[in-house]
């Protein structure tokens, strides 16, 4: 017969001691004293860079990471300072953020919402990241933004172009510097009308996810306002690699323009397929058949090679811009890495500086103080001209670039040429615009 020493009193005592022991680190953490998640110590502050390091957007993620490392270097007083001297706000002095050295941790989004949330969560909970930034997909941005809102940290979005990020899925803790599908359409449509006329019939192929839907809705509305007719919109699975069966019926539809609402590998393959079918050599309705790619990326354009020549699209930023901020960033990035930065790198670098600046101006790492400093903030000197971080939806408003594939590139980086810098006023919209309706910003969450 066995004898046990287990008593009710003993269990309660052990439970109380164990509970107190487990609770002690949390009680002693700075967060609980300062009232917000992951409050930094006196010597350093940790930022979380959540970028695709594996998967289809790994090259873009690598460029984002380069930009973040450059930003950290500049914030800590290293290198040539990059955009710090050109930034209209002058509170950043190369001594870190509020006197704390900037350190960083990285996560791999894998361009999957679940993986991105998991890596962001690990950076917040295990590595003490006070701000999460990065990403190269709207699906990921929306997912991570939601997580950051719940966790009580600031999310400075990387490359995300869906209207939903600052539309129906906007969050008080989330901020987007990158432009969106509406802005692309508003900038691109007048140029398309000028180049191809007002009497056009467009056939859309659209990636079947949040970005594709909002991109198609935006460009269709903008081109229809110019007099174009939308003949058809075909949703294509995101995993598609061969678009021939979607492209083959285009000519027979009566359309004389093909709009490819595709990004990344989808864009490379659909554009390559369309060119293979000889669409660009065809005449329909007495006009030359044209192809449009509303969102361009230089890194992706490289994949499509010669096929991008002469094709119009839009981009958030391009290394050939000649403003002082862009020149300083290109010089800094190009000297360090040997090639010019992508638009993804630019927006990530700028977001890091904007966060550091907001903390410094607000005098606190508290997410609510940071949000307050960013809301309605007007700045210049970071490329794209005078820019506003609108308080109502946390979307940046700035000039947008309309570009086209360069006919005679002088180098492997020289793939796009700027056709027009569309002024900010032309791409602005009301915060309650129907394409952005359905969500609430809510109130900022400091966590802890």
């Amino acid at each position, binding site marked *: 017969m066995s004898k046990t020493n287990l008593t009710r009193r003993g269990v309660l005592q052990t439970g109380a001691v164990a509970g107190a022991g487990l609770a002690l680190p949390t009680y002693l953490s700075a967060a609980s004293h300062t009232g917000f998640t992951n409050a930094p110590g006196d010597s350093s502050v940790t930022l979380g860079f959540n970028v695709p390091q594996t998967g289809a957007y790994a090259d873009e993620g690598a460029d984002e990471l380069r930009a973040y490392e450059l930003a950290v270097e500049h914030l800590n007083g290293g290198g040539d300072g990059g955009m710090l001297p050109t930034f209209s706000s002058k509170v950043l002095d190369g001594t870190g953020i509020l006197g704390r050295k900037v350190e960083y941790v990285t996560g791999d989004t894998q361009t999957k919402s679940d993986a991105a949330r998991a890596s962001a969560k690990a950076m917040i909970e295990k590595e003490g990241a006070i701000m999460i930034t990065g990403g190269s997909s709207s699906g990921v941005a929306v997912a991570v933004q939601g997580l950051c809102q719940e966790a009580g940290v600031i999310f400075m979005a990387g490359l995300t172009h869906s209207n939903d990020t600052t539309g129906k899925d906007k969050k008080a803790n989330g901020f987007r510097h990158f432009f969106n599908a509406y802005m692309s359409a508003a900038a691109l449509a007048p140029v398309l009308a000028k180049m191809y006329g007002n009497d056009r019939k467009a056939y859309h192929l659209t990636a079947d996810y949040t970005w594709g839907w909002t991109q198609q809705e935006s460009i269709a509305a903008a081109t229809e306002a110019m007099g174009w007719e939308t003949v058809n919109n075909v949703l294509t699975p995101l995993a598609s*690699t061969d678009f021939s069966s979607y492209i083959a019926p285009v000519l027979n539809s009566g359309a004389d323009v093909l709009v490819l609402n595709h990004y990344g590998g989808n864009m490379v393959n659909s554009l390559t397929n369309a060119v*293979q*079918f000889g669409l660009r050599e065809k005449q329909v309705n007495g006009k030359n058949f044209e192809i449009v790619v509303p969102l361009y990326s230089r890194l992706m354009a490289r994949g499509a090679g010669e096929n991008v020549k002469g094709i119009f699209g839009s981009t958030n930023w391009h290394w050939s811009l000649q403003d002082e901020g862009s020149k300083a960033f290109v010089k800094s990035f190009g000297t360090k890495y040997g090639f010019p930065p992508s638009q993804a790198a630019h927006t990530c670098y700028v977001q890091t500086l904007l966060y550091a600046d907001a903390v410094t101006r607000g005098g606190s790492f508290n997410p609510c103080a940071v949000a307050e400093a960013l809301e309605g903030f007007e700045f210049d000197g970071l490329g794209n001209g005078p820019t506003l971080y609108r308080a109502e939806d946390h979307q940046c408003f700035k000039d947008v670039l309309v570009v086209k594939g360069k006919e005679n590139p002088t180098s492997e980086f020289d793939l796009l040429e700027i056709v027009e810098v569309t002024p900010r006023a032309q791409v602005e919209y009301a915060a309650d615009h129907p394409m952005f309706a359905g969500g609430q910003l809510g109130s900022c969450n400091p966590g802890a």
Partner: protein
Amino acid sequence: MDAIILQILNGLDKGSAYALIALGLTLIFGTLGVVNFAHGALFMIGAFCAVTVQRVLNFSYETIDPSQTDFLGNPLVVKTPYVFSWFGPETGASIIDWSVPLAILFAIPVMIVVGFVMERGLIKHFYKRPHADQILVTFGLAIVLQELIKYFYGANPIQTGAPDVFRGSFDFGVMLGFDPNVIIYPYWRLVYFAFAAVIIGAVFAFLQFTTFGMVVRAGMADRETVGLLGINIDKKFTIMFGLAAAVAGLAGVMYAPINSPNYHMGMDFLVLSFVVVVVGGMGSLPGAVLAGFLLGILESFASMNEIKSILPGIDQIIIYLVAIIILLTRPRGLMGRKGVMED
């Protein structure tokens, strides 16, 4: 009617790729009894042989052009391919233009060596292991290969164009009495279909009309008896593995201009190719080819707007749906042999 012809044509090139990959898979399964999940990676390596040849032909020397500047404002470094200086700009440009067909010459030995190393170095150790072990190890190998390719070539697709002479499309509609531009088909896809037909024909002829092929077919039917006759069947099967790798590689080389190669393309084809093998009948070479074309064309039909409007999402599941129906009605697949994978 025009839409039906159009989708049949569209299905041909994808069906060609499925058929070529499934043919290699069936050869390996039939001879070695190995379920090779790394076969898609061989297709991908073939496509990257085309990328490599294109890059090698574009190896350049650098000269400084002080009249132009680079993105940092320094004098522009102009790159000129060595083939331009060796053969003159015109011939050099033509050589680069034809890099994909030229890559066939490079891919054949490379793929045979890759197949040989893969079989001798890893897969032969798994002949007597359960199929589950074979699947796990070859799947792992496929991941290693694709990560290696990503490490050296990056994650983004790399454009690898067909020769200029094959740009544009052939207007079948006009030939059949339809209006212009109703039924068009890119020239390169026609080339791909013809190429696949030649390769498939050559493999069948090789197996049917050569002594080597006869021994391999005998080995596929009864490996033990052929061994007892004093024939080193293992050596012949190793050569067959190399041959299957070469077929997959050639399919990849010629597919490069159709879809810009990326490190993941092997996986994209692998699962569907296995479905093709199962539908065609495990171990049946004609079955693999037939099912390859059949499923390629069906997939193409399923992405027609008219069909998608009735059954949304059908384009993504059609192959699996047809596979289920065929396996329910013909459990051994379309041309499956009795006794194969039934023990």
